[in-house]
C-alpha cells in the first residue's frame, strides 16, 4: 500500500503541506475561502463575518484543519501524518469501533460514531492523530472534538501534501517496511 513518508533531511519547514491539506479538505478548495470563510457561521448581522450570500453554502461548514503537522526540533523539521499501520494501535484502542482499517488499507474514522475520548491520540506512537474541535457527537464533550487524521486524500491520485512539497520532502510510495 502506498503511504506518505517524510524525508526530514529535505524538509525546509515551510508548512506548505499544512496549507495544501487544509485547502484540499475544505468545502470550496479555494485557499482564501478555506482560511477566511469556512468555519465561520454565516450571520449577516455579525459585522466580523461579512461574506457574500453566494458563499452562504459554506455557512455552518466546520473550519478545515490540517491533518499533517510539521514538527520542528532545532534545525530539523518534518511533516508527520498518519502511517496507516497494518496493525494500528489506535484501532485497538478505540473503544466504540469508530476507527477501522478500510479494505484498501487506510485507517479511517466513522465521524458520526467517534465520541472524542482521545484514546487513539494516546495510543498513536507517531503522534499523528489530532482532534478536530469543530465537530463533536457528544454534547457533554462538545469542545473535545473528534478523531482527525490523514485520509490520504481520497479524491486525489497523490495526496495534496506530497503534491505541494517544493523539495520532495514527502514521498508517496509503497515500502515493505511495515
Amino acid at each position, binding site marked *: 500500500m502506498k503511504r506518505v513518508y517524510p524525508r526530514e*533531511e*529535505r*524538509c*525546509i*519547514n*515551510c*508548512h*506548505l503541506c*499544512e*496549507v*495544501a491539506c487544509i*485547502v484540499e479538505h475544505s468545502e470550496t478548495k479555494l*485557499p*482564501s475561502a*478555506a*482560511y*477566511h470563510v469556512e468555519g465561520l457561521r454565516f450571520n449577516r448581522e455579525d459585522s466580523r463575518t461579512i461574506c457574500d450570500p453566494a458563499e452562504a453554502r459554506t455557512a455552518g461548514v466546520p473550519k478545515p484543519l490540517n491533518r499533517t503537522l510539521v514538527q520542528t526540533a532545532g*534545525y530539523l*523539521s518534518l511533516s508527520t501524518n498518519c502511517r496507516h499501520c497494518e496493525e494500528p494501535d489506535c484501532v485497538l484502542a478505540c473503544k466504540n469501533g469508530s476507527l477501522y482499517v478500510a479494505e484498501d488499507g487506510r485507517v479511517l474514522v466513522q465521524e458520526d460514531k467517534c465520541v472524542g475520548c482521545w484514546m487513539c491520540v494516546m495510543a498513536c506512537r507517531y503522534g499523528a492523530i489530532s482532534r478536530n474541535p469543530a465537530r463533536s457527537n457528544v454534547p457533554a464533550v462538545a469542545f473535545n472534538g473528534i478523531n482527525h487524521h490523514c485520509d490520504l486524500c481520497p479524491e486525489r491520485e497523490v495526496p495534496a501534501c506530497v503534491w*505541494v512539497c*517544493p*523539495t*520532495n*520532502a514527502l514521498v508517496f510510495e509503497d515500502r515493505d517496511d511495515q
Partner: protein
Amino acid sequence: MEYYEEPNARVALGLRRPEPGDWYHGYPEYHVERDDDKCIRCLVCVRQCPYDCTFYDPHRHGVYNVHENCVNCRRCEFMCPTSAIRITRWGAGFRDNDNWKQKTIRTVYKQADSGAVSLTGLGNDREYVSYFDRMVIDASQVTNPSIDPLREPMELRAYIGKKPERHTNPPEVYPNLKAELPVLFAPMSFGAIAFNFQRGLAMAAKEVGTYFNTGEGGLHPDLRQYGDHAIVQIASGRFGVSLDYLSNAAACEIKIGQGAKPGIGGHLPGEKVTWDVSRTRMIPEGSDALSPAPQHDIYSIEDLRLLIYGLKEATEYTRPVSVKIAAVHNVAAIASGIVRAGADIVVVDGFRGGTGAAPTVIRDHVGIPVEVALAQVDQRLREEGIRHQASLIAAGGIRSSADVIKGLALGADAFYIGTAAMVAVGCTACQQCHRGRCSWGITTNRPDLAPRLQPEVAAERLTNLLHGWAHEIKEMLGMMGLNSIESLRGNRLKLRGVGMTQVELDTLGIQQAGL
C-alpha cells in the same frame, strides 16, 4: 582589515526610530506588497525569509514587513501559495541624479555607518560595455551551404590540454580533458556554496560528460566518486590539498586570481565554516578562511613553473595542470609566461565573474572584460607559436550559448559557467552571497536553509541547461556551415562588430559589420 556585515534586522515589532548609526537601513529600497484579500496567514513567507524582513503580528492576525531589510531575493513571492506577495521599488528613491545614483548614495551611507570595507557577492553589476553584446555572428547564404544539425553529425567534443606541435607516428599524446561540450562548471568552493549545489554540479558534470571545479575549498569525501569529472584547485590558502585530493581528480588547477577580485585572496567568513566545511578544508571549525592574496611560493614565472611541475610530478604526468588568472592589463604577456612555465590549460577570468564575497569597490572596478583578454591572449600565443602548448578557457560573464559561440570564434577552447549555473538552480541575483544566508540554499551552509536546494533537482536543471545550450551551439555552428567546434575556434572571420571604435575592433581582432 575589518569587513562589514549587514547589521541585525530592525526590531520587527515596536516603534521604529531613525538610527543614527544605521542610515543604510534608514531608507527602504524595496517594498513588499501583500494583497490582504489573498493572504491566508499561512506564514510560509515568514518562515522562508532569512533576512528578518517578514513577521507575523498575532495582535492584528496579520503578516507585515520590515521593508528596510528586504533584499529582493523574491523567495516569498516564489513560495506564497496564493500569489499574494509582490515586491516593488520603494517610492521614488532619492532625487533623480545620474551622478549620485541610489546605489552610490547607499554605499556611502553603508560605509559611514560602519567604517569598514563594503562586501558584496555575485559579479560586477555596473553598466560597462559588454563586447559580447556588440558582436554578431555570421551565417551561410547561397555561396556556402548551411548544415542541418538534426540530420547531420555535429562535433561538440573539446579536448582540453596540451596538443602535439606536429603530426608524428606514433603520435605524441599528452593528458587531456575530454569534455562532451566546451562548457565546464566554474570553480565554486564548498563553503562558499552549499554542499547540495556542489553535488548537483558534480552529478550534472557526470551526466553531460563535462567537468566541475572544486574551487579552493577541497573535495568533500562524498564527492570523491565524481573525481573523474572534478578539476581540483590549489589556491593560495591550500585548503584541503593532499596527494589523495590531487590524484583523485581529472585535472589540477593553480588559482592565481579570480575575475571578481583580482589580486586578493578568498574570503570565507567563520560563520560559514561548519563542521563539514572545516573537515573538507582541513581548518578549525568556525575560523575565518581568508586565503592570502598572492601564492607566497609564487613570486615569478619561474616559481610558477616549480609548482606546475610539482603538481605534475605528484600526479605522475597523468593529468593536465591548469593555471587560472584574472583578466588584467598585460594579460597576454602573463598568459604567454604561464604557457612557457608548462601549464597545459590557461584560464582567463573576466571582470564580470562572480564571487561568494568580495569588496564592492574591487568587484566593480578591477579587471578587464574577458572578451578582449581572450582575443589578446589567443593572438599573442599564436604569434609566439605556443598556442598548441595550452588550451584556453574563458570564464566570467558567459551567459548564453551565443556567448560561447562568440568566445569560441575569439579563440577559447572551453568556458566556465558559474553565475549561469547558479541562476539555473534558482539564484535570483540578489547579490547577498557574502551573508551566508542565501534564501535559495545555494550559497549557504546554514542547516535550515541548505535543504532548499536538492542535489537531484540541481543536477536535473543544470543538465537541462547544458543540453539546451548544446542544441543551440549545434544550430549556430550549422548555420555558419561548420560541423565542429574545432572549425570555429579562433575563426574571427565569423564575427563582426557593431557600434565599436576601430581600436576596439582591432583589439578584438574582428571587422566592422558590413565589411
